[in-house]
């Protein structure tokens, strides 16, 4: 192949694509320093006011706290459920394995609105529950189950069963082996799965808004702010911080996953 030539085209294209992907984000960050309540060009002047006002934006902070709470709770549960299922699927001869895997993948492919609406009807009409943070957390566990199962399965399928066999030969029982051997080995995958689940939960709007009662999560609150442009710049300031933090989290998760699976994509060739 005519490598150098293609490579130049490829590099230019990649740079253009990166600009396209990052420009909107950079524009938002730019506006978080703009001295005007109106989010429109031309820019007015530099200010740190919006970041200062963050401390007083009570509802915004409460919704952010709710989101962290929901994110942590749902991700821990999703990782627990997902990794147990992943162990069952990789280490056992599981009956109806394909059926289970298909069912567990449904949240990944089901449109958010259908999921949200179905849960709304089930919670309100059938169970007669008031919508609250617990239900949102439970729903977020559901949408993170597929990704946690897949991430942990990839890790478990990777390492040799010899270690577990050795532990059992040395007298460890089944659960002891899981805790002493399987758990530490899959730890990087568990952290990566947790971070993936947390990021998903923290950003989920389309389904969450349908099952939100009086307490809101951050995306739901942000959306409601779009109708009150005056308070929007503070939200944009908060959003800028969140975008940078979540970008760092993604880098961490990806790094852990790569470090955990200890192989580069190239070696994945089968």
């Amino acid at each position, binding site marked *: 192949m005519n490598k150098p030539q293609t490579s130049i085209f490829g590099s230019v294209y990649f740079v253009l694509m990166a600009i396209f992907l990052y420009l909107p984000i950079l524009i938002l960050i730019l506006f978080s320093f703009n001295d005007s309540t109106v989010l429109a060009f031309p820019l007015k002047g530099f200010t740190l006011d919006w970041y200062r006002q963050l401390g007083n934006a009570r509802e915004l902070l409460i919704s952010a706290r709710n989101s962290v709470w929901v994110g942590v709770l749902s991700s821990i549960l999703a990782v627990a459920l997902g990794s147990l*299922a992943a162990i069952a699927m990789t280490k056992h001869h599981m009956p109806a394995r394909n059926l289970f895997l298909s069912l567990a993948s449904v949240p990944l492919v089901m449109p958010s*609105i*259908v999921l949200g609406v179905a849960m709304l009807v089930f919670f309100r009409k059938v169970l007669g529950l008031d919508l609250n943070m617990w239900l949102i957390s*439970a729903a977020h566990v559901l949408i993170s189950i*597929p990704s946690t199962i897949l991430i942990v399965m990839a890790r478990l399928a990777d390492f*040799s*069963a010899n270690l577990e066999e050795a532990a059992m030969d040395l007298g460890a029982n089944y659960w002891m082996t899981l805790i002493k051997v399987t758990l530490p080995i899959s730890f990087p995958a568990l952290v990566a799965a947790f971070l993936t689940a947390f990021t998903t939960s923290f950003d989920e709007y389309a389904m969450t808004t349908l099952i939100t009662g009086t307490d809101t999560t951050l995306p739901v609150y942000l959306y409601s702010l779009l109708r009150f442009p005056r308070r929007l710049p503070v939200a944009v300031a908060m959003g800028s911080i969140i975008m940078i933090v979540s970008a760092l989290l993604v880098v961490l998760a990806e790094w852990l996953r790569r470090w955990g699976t200890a192989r580069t994509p190239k070696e*994945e060739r089968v």
Partner: protein
Amino acid sequence: MRDETSLSTHVSIKDGRGGIEKKLTGIPRKSQLALLVSPSVLWLIILLVLPLITMIGLSFQKSAFGPGSDVFTFASYLNFWQNSAYQSLLGKSLWISLVVAVMSIVLAYPVAYFLAFHAGDKQGMLLNIMIIPAWTSFLLRVLAWRLILGSNGLLNTFLMWLGVIQEPISGLFYSVNAVIITLVYIWIPFAALPIYVALLRIEPGLLEAASDLGAKPWQGFFKVTLPLSIPGVLAAFLYVFIPTVGEYVTPALVGGPNGLMIGNIIWDQFMRGLDWPMGATLSLVVMLIVLLPLIFMAKAAQQTGLFGGKSE
């Protein structure tokens, strides 16, 4: 990220199983298996299966609450069948999803190709650069496109400054095009990942063989690389197409009255308290449209080994 894992597991999973099964035979495996799987099965049943069954029931009711809730009727389905407004909206949503999926794939393919074959040892870093935007706030990124496409937006101001246009183009914002541009922007990283993984799987020897046999580079691409990356392209298509069919947030934010999709009507039926049974019916229609091709493709993949090998 998750796409990549999901694709690679299908292949590697079989190697990990098997070995230990022999060793585990002495232990009561059924109870272990039950303990391992039952939490997630329970979760899936309570939060997925039962809600969906409820919704099927609701779609056959006359009304969601009150005396009408005991009446069994096909009214909502009949309504959908007879009301061309619903059908054309559904058609438009499918069309938008198709355009968005195809555009995302076309724009993402060269990126995936570059990453897989020409990025060298920077591959991991460049891949991260592609992925990171996909994990930052969805709502804020859509909001950013409001700033770009609005009449005082970046694009208009820029074009006017260049002198290309004298008056702001108003058709950019609150239109179907705005929805498509924003969604393509959102989906490009997700479309690139499965294609990238599929390209990585291609044996370099195949391309060398093609070129040894006299194929020009472009022939090598069209006869070897492209056909072998089709599983990745199909996966990318599904990853983009499926969520887009039910999308309602982006149309509500940048679509205006002309850019609304079927998801917006479903939302209205439930959240504006209009007609829950009708909303349930429309949701089920969307679900069927999304799941049927998926089941069909999964079956095809199982038979032909399309997605990296037969599952059993």
